[in-house]
């Protein structure tokens, strides 16, 4: 009989190289940086200002810096963990191979927030820009009942639901965003943000910065909490670690480089936005960047251009995010952590159809009825918690497996992971209590589910696929013994 402690701590053996698809190190420094930039930009910046400025005032500029630095530190830790385990996958896979089943479940719970909930948040932001675009082009807006969450006086956010449904159809058909489309989308996003900066700066008014930090350092941190959402995606560079050329040099450079580009753009947008619009006006503004331009110029065309760019590029972000979620659940289902229905593949389309439908339905419901600020905060806390686990895991792994061959080691150990942990905790504590409470309940629910479901169905359970003690535990990470019950 395996004890619960053993179950929580057992780790998934790393499969031997099958020789079928040897990973080749083909991605150089600049493509890596491009991956980081493209996965990060555009998730939040288009609508996060109206959530963050009311919290932090003009000092939101510092919120961006803080959120960016914490995201950068955690991405570095993530890169080391990813490099230590030659499995390809998300944080969940790394956690399962290094920190054990229990941690992997917690990370899985966080990733559901990082992906499913952020897809919902992004879809809601998309809906705001669609409405703005329709208003500018045709002179009418969707009725408030059909474009707002119930809490904001509507019935359902219809455009957001439609967007999610469209993405689901594309994913079921097997559409994947190609590298070329992605590159085009990134160019559109960057061009739109530069356009905002260039046009918005003409409405500059230094008076808007007079009351720089009305809510003090606490306000700045709270702003960083919400803004962290817009740095989700930086960790994508780490998942490319295995295919990166010279990862020791290129991974940190790519993460830092991407971070610098992203922070510079974000701060440019933030400074110009506040310079152009009284900080008090940000609250409850929809399709914020577009509105600011309309006010600065006094004509609707710049807002229309920006809204069009946002509509196109946010669509691709939603697609990629929902895709990521379905594939993470797929991996979890294959490990026996969630029901097998998530691992069914349709033979004709070669896509996990049931999985995609379930994920999209949940995302659509979230996007339809929950306001964006709550969705953004839930995404932030989920991501922060996942990063926290990664940073802690890095330290544990260094202590437990000092000899382990690592493709990449974080610079300035142990300062980097400790700073990263402290930064995550600090930002988490500044979020609204309701967010923290809901998050705690969510993780608890997930662990209860694990207790009654995944614990016994895990592929590592004796009698299951990999649970046979005779299965050789392969080299890289040593496994806790299932025989003597001694936990290290």
């Amino acid at each position, binding site marked *: 009989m395996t004890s619960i402690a053993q179950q929580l701590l057992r780790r998934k053996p790393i499969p031997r190289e099958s020789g079928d*698809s040897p*990973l080749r190190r083909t991605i150089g420094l600049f493509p890596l940086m491009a*991956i980081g930039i*493209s*996965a990060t930009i555009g998730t939040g910046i288009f609508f996060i200002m109206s959530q963050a400025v009311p919290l932090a005032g003009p000092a939101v500029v510092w919120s961006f810096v803080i959120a960016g630095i914490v995201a950068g530190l955690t991405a570095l830790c993530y890169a080391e963990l990813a490099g230590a385990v030659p*499995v*390809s*996958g*998300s*944080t969940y*896979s790394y956690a399962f191979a290094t920190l054990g089943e229990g941690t992997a479940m917690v990370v899985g719970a966080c990733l559901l927030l*990082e*992906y499913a909930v952020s897809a919902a948040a992004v879809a809601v932001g998309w809906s705001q820009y669609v409405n703005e675009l329709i208003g500018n082009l045709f002179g009418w807006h969707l009725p408030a009942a059909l474009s707002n969450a119930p809490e904001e006086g509507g019935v359902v956010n219809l455009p957001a639901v439609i967007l999610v449904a469209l993405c689901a159809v594309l994913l079921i058909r097997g559409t*994947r*965003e*190609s*590298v070329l489309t*992605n590159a085009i989308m990134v160019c559109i996003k960057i061009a739109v943000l530069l356009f905002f900066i260039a046009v918005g700066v003409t409405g500059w008014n230094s008076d808007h910065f007079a009351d720089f930090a009305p809510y003090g350092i606490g306000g700045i941190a709270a702003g960083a909490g919400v803004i962290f959402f817009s740095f989700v*995606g930086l*960790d*994508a560079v780490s*998942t*490319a670690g*295995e*295919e990166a050329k010279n990862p020791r040099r290129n991974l940190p450079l790519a993460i830092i480089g991407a971070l610098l580009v992203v922070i510079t753009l974000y701060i440019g947008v933030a400074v110009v936005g506040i310079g152009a619009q009284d900080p008090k006006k940000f609250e409850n503004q929809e399709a914020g960047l577009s509105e600011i331009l309309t006010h600065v110029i006094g004509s609707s065309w710049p807002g229309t251009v920006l809204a069009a760019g946002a509509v196109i590029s946010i669509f691709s972000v939603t697609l*990629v*995010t929902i*895709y*990521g979620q379905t*594939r*993470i659940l*797929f*991996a979890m289902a*294959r490990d026996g952590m969630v029901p097998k229905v998530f*691992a*069914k*593949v*349709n*033979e*004709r389309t*070669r*896509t*996990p159809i049931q999985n995609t439908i379930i994920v999209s339905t949940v995302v659509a419901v979230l996007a339809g009825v929950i306001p964006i600020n709550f969705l953004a905060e839930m995404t932030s806390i989920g991501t922060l918690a996942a990063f926290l686990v990664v940073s802690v895991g890095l330290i544990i792994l260094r202590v437990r497996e000092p000899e382990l061959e690592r493709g990449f080691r974080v610079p300035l150990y142990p300062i980097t992971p400790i700073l990263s942990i402290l930064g995550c905790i600090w930002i988490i504590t500044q979020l609204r209590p309701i967010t923290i409470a809901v998050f705690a309940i969510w993780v608890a629910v997930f662990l209860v589910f694990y207790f009654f479901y995944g614990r016994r169905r895990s592929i590592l359970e004796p009698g299951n696929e990999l649970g046979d003690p005779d299965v050789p535990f392969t080299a890289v990470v040593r496994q806790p013994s299932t025989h003597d019950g001694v936990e290290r």
Partner: protein
Amino acid sequence: MSVLVGVDTGRRSESVLALAAQLANSLQTDLVVAAVVASAWPPSRASVDHEWREHHHAAANLVLDHAASVFGGQVKARYLLHEASSARRGLLELAEQEAPDALVLGSSGQGETGRIALGAVSEALLHASPVPVAIAPVGYRAGLDSRIVRLTAGYGGTEAAEDLVLGAATVAARAGGSLRIASFAVRPEAETGILSGAGGRAEDPVLIEWVEQIRRHASAIIDEVEELDPRPRVDDAVIGVGGSWAAAIDDIGWGEGELLVVGSSSLNPIARVFLGSHGVKIVRNSPVPALVVPRAAAWG
């Protein structure tokens, strides 16, 4: 029963004739070689287009003569000259009239040697023919007395695809060849998974799961084939994986005298060929002649 060959009146092509003879040998049926020429339009009493018609008929006769000379005395065939408003319509009319086992067409002249290139007529017939359509790759050659050695049935995981395999099995048995079941998957690029944070190989487990499911079903179908009478020799089910459709199809290996059999899209309930998007890609990348079968064809 027969095999109907549509020859292009503008171009003499031996590949289509080679395939037609091979099919007729294997199925032990008659061979009908048809040239479709444009009919007068509008029909007029003054015969103003007499010379125009003469010209077309002469061209068609030239091509039919060429076919007869290629076949020599070796292959028995009937030669038809059919008037219709378009080549596509003419071949459809003949297909209804002759009710052949298969309609054989050549590739368009512009294609790459060894691959199938669909021209306007073959493309249209792939979406409208009531009978199976066979298409020869550019530059296809086979001995006039050769036979089809093996049929490879493309299996796409649907019920219609299952029926197709059973149909192909019957034909393979009749032709004395063997049958193999093949599925194809295109391995996507790593970047999508990386961008979404799901890992560079996020699609690999999906592919593995798919392969397992396909293998299970294919072996179930093979069991069914074993119960047929007469039954063909059955090779193992194969799964071609590659970075592109061409690579995935090349992956399973092809030899001489092979025929790829593809079913029409399961979306179309009508008894006509309607090639789906996967089917078109498979046909275009096939290194051997391809036979596209309408879903409801009582074939074989």
